[in-house]
C-alpha cells in the first residue's frame, strides 16, 4: 500500500480534472496520500508524479516545502500549540510546556505508543481566542491547562473520534462539480474572450464614448 487505492485513485482523477494543468493538483494529491496512509510515502509521491506528469523528485521538492506534509509516520493525533505573539502573551508557551509534561515528550516528537505528536506552531488564526491549539487541525480555543489534560484523556479514550479523525484526514466534505453544471477548465494556452464580456464590450464602449 501507498500507491493510491482504487477508491482514492478515482478521487485523485476527479481532483486532477479540475485543473487546467495537472501539476497544479500536486498539493491536493499529497493531502490525499496523507489521508490514505497518515503520512506521505515515497511510493505515493511516485504515483503522484505519474498522475501529474512530473518526476518523483519534483513531487518531493514541493512536498518538502510544506509543513503539513509528514514524510515519516506521526501520531494519530497531531497536537499543534500556537506560541506566536498573541498566544505567547496569553500563556501559549506555558501551555506548550504543560503539554510537554502531560505527554512526556518534547515539542517536535511523538509519544512511544504513536498516539500523539506535539508541535510548537506559528499563528493559526485564532489570535483573539488565545491560548489555542489544534488537534489534527480542529481547534480548541482559550484552553486551560486542566482542559488540556481532559482533552488528552478524551482522545486516548477514543471519545472524540467523530469530531477529530486520525491524522491525515483534513476536510471530510469534498467538492464535486456535477458534469452537467461544469463550466470547464480555462485552457491557459488559449481561450477566447469570455462570451459575457465580448457580448457587452461594444455596448460598454459605446456608452462611455
Amino acid at each position, binding site marked *: 500500500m501507498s500507491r493510491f487505492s482504487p477508491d482514492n485513485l478515482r478521487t485523485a482523477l476527479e481532483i486532477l480534472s*479540475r*485543473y*487546467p*494543468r495537472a501539476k*497544479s*493538483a*500536486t*498539493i*491536493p494529491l499529497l*493531502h490525499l496520500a496523507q489521508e490514505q496512509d497518515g503520512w506521505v510515502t515515497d511510493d505515493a509521491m511516485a504515483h503522484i508524479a505519474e498522475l*501529474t506528469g512530473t518526476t518523483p523528485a519534483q513531487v518531493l*521538492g514541493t512536498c518538502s*516545502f*510544506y*509543513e*503539513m*506534509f509528514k514524510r515519516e509516520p506521526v501520531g494519530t493525533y497531531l497536537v*499543534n500549540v500556537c506560541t*506566536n*505573539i*498573541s498566544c*505567547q*502573551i496569553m500563556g501559549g508557551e506555558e501551555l506548550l510546556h504543560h503539554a510537554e509534561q502531560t505527554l512526556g515528550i518534547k515539542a517536535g516528537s511523538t509519544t512511544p505508543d504513536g498516539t500523539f505528536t506535539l508541535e510548537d506552531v506559528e*499563528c*493559526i*488564526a485564532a*489570535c*483573539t*481566542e*488565545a491560548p489555542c491549539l489544534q488537534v*489534527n*487541525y480542529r*481547534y480548541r480555543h482559550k484552553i486551560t491547562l486542566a482542559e488540556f489534560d481532559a482533552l488528552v484523556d478524551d482522545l486516548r479514550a477514543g471519545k472524540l473520534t467523530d469530531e477529530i479523525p486520525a491524522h491525515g484526514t*483534513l*476536510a*471530510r*466534505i469534498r*467538492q464535486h*462539480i456535477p458534469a*452537467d*453544471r*461544469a*463550466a*470547464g477548465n*480555462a485552457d*491557459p494556452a488559449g*481561450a*477566447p*474572450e*469570455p*462570451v*459575457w*464580456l465580448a*457580448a*457587452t*464590450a461594444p*455596448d*460598454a464602449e459605446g*456608452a*462611455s464614448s
Partner: protein
Amino acid sequence: MAVTDAPKIISSRFGYTDSHTLERYVATGGYKGLEAALAKKPADVVEEVKTASLLGRGGAGFPAGVKWGFCPPGVFPRYLVVNGDESEPGTYKDRLLMEKDPHQLIEGVLIACYAVGCAQAFLYVRGEMALAQERIAQALNDAYAAGHIGKNIHGSDFSVDIVLHWGAGAYIVGEETGLIESLEGNRGLPRLKPPFFPAAKGLYLQPTIVNNVETLANLPWIVTNGGAAFAALGAENSKGMRMFAVSGHVKNPGVFEVEFGVTTFRDLLYAPVYGGGIRGGKQLKAFIPGGASAPWLYPEHLDVPLEAGTVGKLGTMLGSGAIVVFDEDTDMVKACLRLVRFFARESCGKCTPCREGTTWLEKILERIVDGHGRPEDLDLLLDVCDNISVGMNWPPKQTTICPLGQSATTPVASAIMRFQDEFEAYIGAPSEITVEVKGPAFTRPPEHVLEAARD
C-alpha cells in the same frame, strides 16, 4: 468615542447558528448581488467597485477596482485566485468569513469573475483550516446544485467554475506570487515583480486577479446597495466597514466589524462593545496595529483613526486588520524574539538578506534573552536590519524579492528604539546605538513617558 451605528456589511449573518447554509444565505438576501451584477454590463460592475473605493483587505490595501483594471486588454483566459491563506500573526477574520458565511465569499468571487472576465476561479484556503474547507466545499456543492455556479449561471451567458484548493502550511504562500507558484504545484517561492505582477503575468503566466477573502466578501453588498452607499461610510481613503481582530491584553478580545476610517484605536481597544479596556486594570504599553509585519504604536497614538493614509503617515500600517495589545507587564524583548523567530522560520530562503538576516536576528536575540547579550548587540541587530531594508524607512526599502524580509526588521527596530532599557536590562550594561533608523514609528519614548518611568 466614535462607536458608529453603521450597518454590518460582511459579518451581518454571524449571529445565526446556520449562517453557513444556503437556506439562511438566500433567506437573508443572498445571491441578490449576483443577480444585480448580471443585470449590468461587466464594465459597469467594475465602475461600481471603483466608486466604492474598496481597498484590498489582505495587507497591502490596494484599491480592488483599480487592480482589476490592470489586466491587459485582449489577453485571455483571465483567472481569479482567492487568497484565503490567512497566516499573518494576529490576523483572524478570513477564517471566520469562510467558516460562517462561505456563500457570501462565493457570491463575491462570482461578481468579480463576471466583472473582470475570469473564466475560472481558484479558492485557495489555508491548509490548517479544516472546518473552513468543509464549509466551503459544502457551500460550493450546494451553490452548484442551485445554479449559482458553473455553466450559464442564473440562465445567463456567464459561466465559471470555482475550484476549492487547500494549502499545506507555509506563511509565504500568502504572498500573492508565492500563492500562484503553490497553485501551480511548486514550492511557494515568490516571483520577482516586475515582470510577474499577477494581473499581467499570474497563474500559468496569464492575467490573474488575486484578492483577499474579506475584500471579495464586500462585493455582494456593494453591488446590491451601490458603490456610493459603501463610499458614504468611512473617511478619506478608507471607505466602508472593516474587520479588525483585537487580541492580547484586552478584556474582550474579539473580531469586530467597525466603520473604517473614523473609528479610532482608542474605540477599538477601550469601548465596552469592542476591546473593553486593558485587562486587570493595567496600563497599555504598546500595540501592533496591522499584524506582525507592522511597526508598533504606543499610547500616544490611541486617538488616531483607523484610516489607511493617516496610519501610513505615522510610519506603520493597518495591514491585515490585526491589532495585538501589550500591557505594561509585557516583556518586549521576548515579544520581539518571538516575532523574529516567526519570520526566520517562514523565510522561503530565496533571497540572501532575508534568509541569512532573519536567522542571525533570531540567534542574536536568543543570546540576549539567554543572558549572553553584549552591549554592541543592539547596533549589530540594527545593522543586520539595515542590510535587509536600507535605512529602516517607511515605506520600507526592499533588497529582497518579496516584503517578508523587511517585515522581519519591524519588530526589531520597534522594540530596540522604544524599549532600549529592557534590552539593556537583559544585557546588563548600557549600549550605544549608532545605526540610523529612519522610520517615523521607530522612535524613542516621548519625554513624559521617560519622566514617568524615572519616578
